[in-house]
């Protein structure tokens, strides 16, 4: 991707002592990612990070679905900040892009309308007896990895290179809308040409692919996906992106937003089942990775340890390209060695359960 104004959009990212706020979607659909993130930051890079069992959902999904009112979410956010302060931290890092957006938005609202902050502090105090102390620094966890990308590169065992051709892997990066589209100055590289994922990819040997619909939303859209009747609209957005990127033959998609990773992955399955279309090479889908998984692979983690068997689109083609050794037999064995169940065959992974599409291709 061509660099534009990346230098102009820089933000301060704390170097150490992070208070970790988990993501609802990520811990449910990509549980290995959060675990890997904590492990990489704490054990590989030697940073202090605190995963607080007391903290809750930010209620952002509810907020964006018009279920949770502003005052409520402000109180919830105030509680997260209070917990962070109680734990002795002042650098908040959130795993979820929507949470990051919520924190930024609310801090900004408090700044613009101080009475709202006061009200939130009062509510918090009345409800929980806690005191609101705002964080010094709010960053997304992808910002942290971006910040530490060079350090990761030093420990890298498997760069983003196609071991068969020696060429850099072609990576499509997708930035969650709430990362920088709400507050461009709060994202690395701004909203038009965000650099947060591109920086990681470049540092780890891959090649970023720019394509026309790069900025487009994955289609999550909260209400749109939550209501079954509206889901076709959500899928259409992902489809638009996939159609736009397919000619560039990307090796994988990497997202910094848990929702995006989920939808770009699962809607590929849906589209394939409904229409028989796949967008990757060789009649299969394009693997979708979280940046934690990408960092984990680069650092030599076992893909099944990273939870990559949870993906809808099989990641094996990518692992083969990267030269990652993996044991197919253990793919569906949990950490305790117990069988966790195997998904049904899917068109997106090159299977034609009903033979319908293979008939079509005749």
């Amino acid at each position, binding site marked *: 991707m*061509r660099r*534009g104004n990346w230098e102009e959009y820089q933000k301060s990212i704390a170097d150490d002592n992070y208070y970790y706020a988990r993501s609802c979607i990520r811990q449910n659909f990509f549980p290995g990612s959060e675990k890997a993130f904590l492990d990489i930051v704490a054990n590989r890079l030697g940073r202090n990070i605190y995963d607080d069992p007391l903290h809750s959902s930010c209620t952002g999904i509810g907020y964006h679905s018009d279920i949770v009112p502003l005052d409520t979410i402000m109180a919830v956010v105030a509680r997260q900040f209070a917990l962070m302060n109680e734990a002795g931290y002042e650098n908040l890092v959130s795993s979820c892009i929507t949470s990051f957006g919520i924190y930024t938005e609310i801090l900004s609202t408090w700044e613009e309308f101080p009475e709202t902050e006061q009200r939130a502090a009062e509510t918090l105090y009345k409800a929980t007896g806690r005191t609101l102390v705002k964080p010094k620094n709010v960053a997304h966890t992808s910002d942290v990895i971006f910040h530490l990308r060079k350090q990761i590169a030093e420990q890298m065992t498997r760069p983003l290179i196609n071991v068969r051709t020696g060429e850099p892997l072609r990576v499509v990066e997708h930035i969650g809308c709430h990362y920088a589209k709400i507050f461009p100055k709060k994202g690395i590289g701004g909203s038009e*040409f965000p650099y947060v994922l591109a920086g990681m990819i470049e540092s780890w040997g891959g090649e970023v692919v720019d394509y026309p*619909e790069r*900025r487009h939303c994955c289609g999550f859209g909260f209400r749109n996906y939550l209501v079954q009747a509206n889901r076709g609209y959500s899928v259409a957005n992902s489809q638009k992106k996939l159609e736009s990127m397919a000619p560039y033959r990307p090796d994988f998609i990497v997202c910094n937003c848990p929702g995006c990773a989920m939808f770009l992955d699962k809607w590929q399955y849906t589209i394939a089942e409904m229409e028989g279309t796949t967008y990757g090479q060789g009649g299969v889908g394009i693997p979708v990775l979280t940046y934690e998984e990408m960092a984990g692979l680069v650092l030599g983690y076992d893909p099944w340890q990273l939870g990559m068997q949870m993906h809808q689109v099989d990641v094996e083609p990518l692992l083969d390209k990267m030269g990652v050794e993996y044991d197919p037999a253990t793919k569906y064995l949990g950490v305790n060695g117990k069988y966790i169940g195997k998904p049904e065959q899917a068109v997106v992974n090159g299977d034609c359960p009903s033979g319908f599409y293979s008939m079509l291709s005749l």
Partner: protein
Amino acid sequence: MKGRVVIVGGGVAGMQTALSLKALGIESLILEQSRQLGGKLTGWHLLFPTFTPAQDVVAPLIRAVRQSGIQTRFGCKVVSVDSRRVILDSGERIDAAAVVLCSGSTLFNAKIKEEYGYGIYDNVFTSADIEQMMNNGKVAMADGRTPERIAILHCVGSRDEKVCQRHCSKVCCITAVKQAIELKKLFPDADVFNFYMDMRMFGPGYEELYRRAQIEHNIHFVRGRISEASPLMDSRVQIKAEDTLTGRPLRMSVDMLVLMVGMRANDDNAFISSSSGAELAENGFFKPRNSFMDNVLSTKEGIFLVGTISSPKTVGQTLNEASAAAIRIAEYLRYGN
């Protein structure tokens, strides 16, 4: 009366002011920041709506200024102005009987609208780039290919709160029509699309030119602002807009995207204003004392305004203002204000 009339800026506004003053028997001094007279018009190719070469306006003015012995100083950056003197960045103080601000305006930096990818994608150009290319005699895509489809986007850096430019730059609509025709003449097989918010064809002959562009040159006009530009594999650009007349989003790939950059107030207007006491309007341009009777007077006595220093204007309007200002200066020098 001590000193001469000091004219800040040696573009067409400054030159015509000096010439008009000269005709009234008043001596003036032109202070020009660059190394040559002519200002922005020097880089322009043809002028709307008559396709008159810009040189046909600039060159005679420069010649007249030289011939009439009007004193001109180059490389002068003005840092402070009041109605009696002008201070340069060298610290030099120049006494003035009156000061005329003719320092014009600044072309909007298209890079700020980064969603259009100017400076990022090879085939995104500004209107000024096109004029330059026309002057150089070679208009083409970045790799030298002949464009087959060109999009021209109006209002880049005008009427846009997002970049703090609320005003209309006035001349871009007609410039876009003019450039569309020029491009169509250069590339008869190319499709030229103009994306506009409103067509503001305010001047004599403008609407007629617009009509000719549509009917004779088959230039397409789409009402809708391009929202983003993205690269395509072959270095072409994909643009998105809404065709607001059909209420449908519209997407197309183009070989060249031309951004009609607007005029914005000079950055140094702010400190010229604070040093002189001449007030600025909300949009950062100098405020005329009265929009009807005193267009060429600033709010501060002894400081006059000519050209785009006070708002976006056409060349013709600027030249008219220069003559008008000369008369008002003569009155001022004679009777005070």
